[in-house]
């Protein structure tokens, strides 16, 4: 690691800052007091192994001030479960936990608190479950301890899923049952080793009956319930033939085992149940991972809020807030509910809702939204709607809905499978009647074999398994899937549209050239970057980010921001202005002629312009590679941007993109996409792109854009780089190929096995193996997608 970056968080260290922490006998530089405190705390408590455990992953956010978490105490009751033994248990979602080192650290430090009984940390779901003695330890203390380490603890409001355990039990029960029944079925099947003693035979059959009964009623009943529900909804689901075959096999075998003649089919039945459950178990696990990511959105709403009552202000838990209540908010707090400002004014950061990073001014009568943060000012807000109707909740619902939608291809497979089921049932009936008519003595064998062997499991697994495998792969490579269908269509689309600002170029600006116009002498002694750094510290405008921050601990004079123009203030008794040409002109400065395509920013004092800075937004990482790859694949690329002509042209030339459209408003962009005759991929970010993203056949947005844009887009890129898109492209093509192979295989298998089964030449246990192997091949084939490397 270079010494320019913070040893703890890896962020660049501001110029001129000399903060160090003494770790393992070495001085290490730190970027801020928060990081220093954490690093020193770790070192002092002999936890410096943290730095060894964490691999390449570093926290990317610097440590903010630690919070007080007083509000946690108010909502205590909702967050703590009291266990039977009198201990309290709580689940905390810890944001900023990246790797095993973090888990290790939390375990260590929390473990030292008095009254802690048990800590369980899941690094995958970022959840910490703490069991503690509430007499000795408060919830607030736990939260404070976690936040002192630099993590952001949030109450975990998601209900624990208990399904997982149940499912696992059912799966294992059927697995063990299957093994036992198969073991004692072998002597019944093989004629040479046959147990000749009829009494012993009887004993074996009854034992299988005992175990099979348990397997059927414990593990198999889900299928019967599902089938019953499907039938009530007049829908022929896959569970209908499944339930028919296992019930038929079970009850016929029960009858046969008491009548003492013919084969019993307990082995086939339990095997069938086991393999089906196994397939569903794997499917469920993948889905669960998706849900965890979504729930993070709602965690943004604070768990308690200050409400104005006749006697003053009281702190109440979120769920007690009602429409019409007055909330009291001061700077730094997160708004708990949607409402109208009834007193005061301030600035809100609504980035989470709109993606706009700049604070928005809020006056009396204006609307504020739950999840937004009040940056400046004090306001009173009258709640205008219940919690479930807030904009944030609606957005979360929208995301959930989009996830539940099945892709068209998936629906198609389901549709085909349901026809298939009907055909299977008809074939089974035909088989039954034929064998009965001809009196072949194979009626039961043939019937069961047909039902089991033709189960369209492989067919209906073909698409979903490949798609979920693709989703799993993509999420590991920084791509979130909103719309599964995008995976299968992405690589087919020929026409790609890119937004420029914030998509092809990064959102932060950089100074590329400085023209120092000062005349030399004493004037020049003061470095420009000190002045600009001092002035820009008050501004949160993207342009301000171009000027590197320098630590200036002394106050040299007041600085003020003039939104839309620039900043102005005193630095060591000289008055400076830093801002646009228009602003400078309004003060009568003569503007020096600097020929440039870049954005120009001027620094002036009372004597005139001192310097001109050329600013440009850098190309985003991976943009060049992505465009080159796409062009290699003969895709047509276009840039649509709201930016002015020169900037867009520059960008297009850098990326060798021939078609570009500058100065487009959101409506123009929409129009442009609508006019395309072929499918379109749109890559964009931010609010103004949301409608455009929704228009495109496949849409891709970037994480730092608005969550609203997430909802409208099919794929979300999580990192700073555009490279994941290239990976998504590769995965998309591969997935499509896998799905095709799967479908062909499943259809071929089902078609070839059915006639054999109908003739009664296939025993049910063999059919069950055939069914499982064909499904297994499909699942294994799909799993290959998970391994696609970038």
């Amino acid at each position, binding site marked *: 690691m270079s010494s320019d970056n913070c040893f703890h968080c890896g962020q660049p260290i501001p110029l001129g800052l000399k903060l160090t922490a003494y770790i393992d006998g070495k001085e290490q530089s730190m970027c801020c007091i928060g990081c220093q405190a954490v690093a020193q705390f770790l070192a002092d408590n002999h936890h410096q192994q943290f730095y060894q455990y964490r691999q390449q992953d570093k926290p990317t956010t610097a440590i903010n001030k630690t919070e007080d978490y007083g509000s946690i105490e108010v909502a205590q009751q909702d967050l703590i479960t009291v266990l039977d033994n009198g201990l309290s248990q709580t689940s905390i979602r810890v944001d900023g936990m990246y790797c095993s080192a973090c888990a290790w650290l939390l375990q260590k430090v929390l*473990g030292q608190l008095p009254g802690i009984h048990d800590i369980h940390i899941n690094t995958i779901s970022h959840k910490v479950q703490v069991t503690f003695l509430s007499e000795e330890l408060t919830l607030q203390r736990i939260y404070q301890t976690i936040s002192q380490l630099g993590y952001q603890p949030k109450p975990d409001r998601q209900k624990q899923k208990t399904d*997982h*355990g149940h499912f696992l039990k059912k799966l294992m029960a059927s697995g063990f049952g299957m093994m036992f029944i198969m073991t004692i079925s072998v002597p019944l099947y093989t004629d040479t080793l046959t147990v000749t003693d009829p009494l012993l035979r009887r004993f074996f059959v009854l034992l299988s009956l005992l175990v099979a009964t348990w397997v059927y009623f414990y593990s198999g009943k889900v299928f019967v319930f599902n089938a019953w529900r499907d039938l009530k909804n007049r829908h022929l689901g896959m569970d209908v033939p499944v339930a028919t075959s296992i019930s038929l096999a079970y009850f016929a075998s029960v009858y046969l085992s008491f009548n003492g003649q013919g084969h019993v089919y307990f082995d086939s039945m339990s095997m069938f149940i086991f393999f089906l459950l196994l397939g569903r178990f794997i499917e469920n696990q993948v889905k669960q991972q998706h849900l965890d990511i979504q729930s993070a959105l709602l965690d943004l709403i604070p768990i308690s809020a200050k409400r104005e009552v006749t006697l003053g202000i009281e702190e109440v838990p979120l769920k007690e807030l009602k429409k019409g209540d007055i909330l009291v908010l001061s700077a730094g707090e997160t708004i708990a509910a949607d409402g109208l400002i009834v007193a005061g004014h301030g600035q809100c950061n609504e980035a989470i809702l709109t993606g706009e990073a700049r604070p928005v001014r809020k006056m009396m009568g204006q609307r504020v939204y739950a999840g937004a943060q009040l940056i400046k000012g004090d306001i009173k807000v009258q709640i205008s709607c219940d919690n479930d109707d807030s904009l944030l909740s609606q957005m979360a619902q929208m995301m959930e809905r989009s996830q539940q939608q099945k892709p068209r291809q998936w629906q198609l497979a389901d549709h085909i499978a349901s026809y298939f089921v009907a055909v299977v049932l008809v074939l089974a009936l035909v088989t039954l009647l034929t064998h009965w008519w001809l009196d072949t003595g194979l009626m039961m064998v043939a019937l069961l074999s047909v039902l089991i062997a033709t189960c369209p499991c492989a067919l209906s697994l073909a698409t979903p398994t490949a798609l979920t495998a693709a989703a799993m792969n993509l999420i590991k490579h920084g791509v979130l899937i909103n719309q599964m269908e995008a995976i299968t269509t992405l690589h087919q689309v020929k026409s790609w549209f890119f937004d420029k600002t914030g998509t092809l170029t990064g959102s932060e600006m950089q100074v590329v050239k400085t023209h120092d116009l000062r005349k030399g002498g004493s004037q020049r002694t003061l470095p420009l970057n000190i002045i600009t750094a001092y002035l820009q510290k008050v501004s949160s405008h993207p342009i301000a980010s171009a000027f590197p921050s320098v630590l200036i601990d002394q106050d040299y004079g007041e600085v003020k921001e003039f939104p839309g123009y620039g900043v102005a203030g005193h630095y060591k008794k000289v008055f400076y202005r830093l801002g646009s040409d228009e602003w400078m002109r309004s003060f009568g400065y003569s503007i020096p002629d600097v020929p440039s395509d870049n954005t120009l920013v001027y620094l002036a004092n009372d004597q005139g312009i001192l310097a001109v800075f050329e600013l440009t937004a850098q190309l985003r990482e991976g943009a060049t590679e992505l465009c080159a790859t796409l062009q290699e694949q003969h895709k047509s690329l276009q840039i649509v941007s709201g930016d002015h002509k020169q900037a867009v042209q520059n960008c297009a030339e850098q990326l060798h993109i021939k078609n570009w459209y500058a100065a487009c408003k959101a409506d123009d962009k929409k129009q442009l996409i609508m006019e395309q005759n072929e499918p379109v991929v749109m890559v964009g970010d931010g609010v103004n792109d949301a409608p455009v993203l929704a228009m495109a056949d496949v849409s891709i947005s970037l994480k730092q854009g608005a969550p609203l844009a997430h909802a409208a887009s099919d794929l979300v890129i999580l990192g700073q780089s555009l490279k994941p898109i290239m990976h998504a492209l590769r995965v998309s093509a591969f997935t499509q190929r896998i799905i095709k192979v799967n479908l062909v295989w499943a259809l071929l298998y089902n078609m070839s096995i059915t006639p054999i089964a109908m003739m009664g030449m296939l025993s049910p246990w063999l059919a069950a193996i055939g069914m499982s192997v064909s499904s297994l091949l499909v699942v294994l084939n799909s799993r290959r997608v998970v391994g696609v490397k970038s």
Partner: protein
Amino acid sequence: MVVVLVLLSLFLVVAAIGAFFWAVNNKQFDDLDSPAYSILEDDETDHSTTSRK
């Protein structure tokens, strides 16, 4: 003889299922990823926090 052996195997199956159910109920299958790292913790004072039930 055969009967005894078969019954014995049935008993084993029941025991295996029982053991498994016990493990699931004890949440031993809830998190299969993090405990792998616990072996790397070399702090001797720590047993009180993790193993106490």
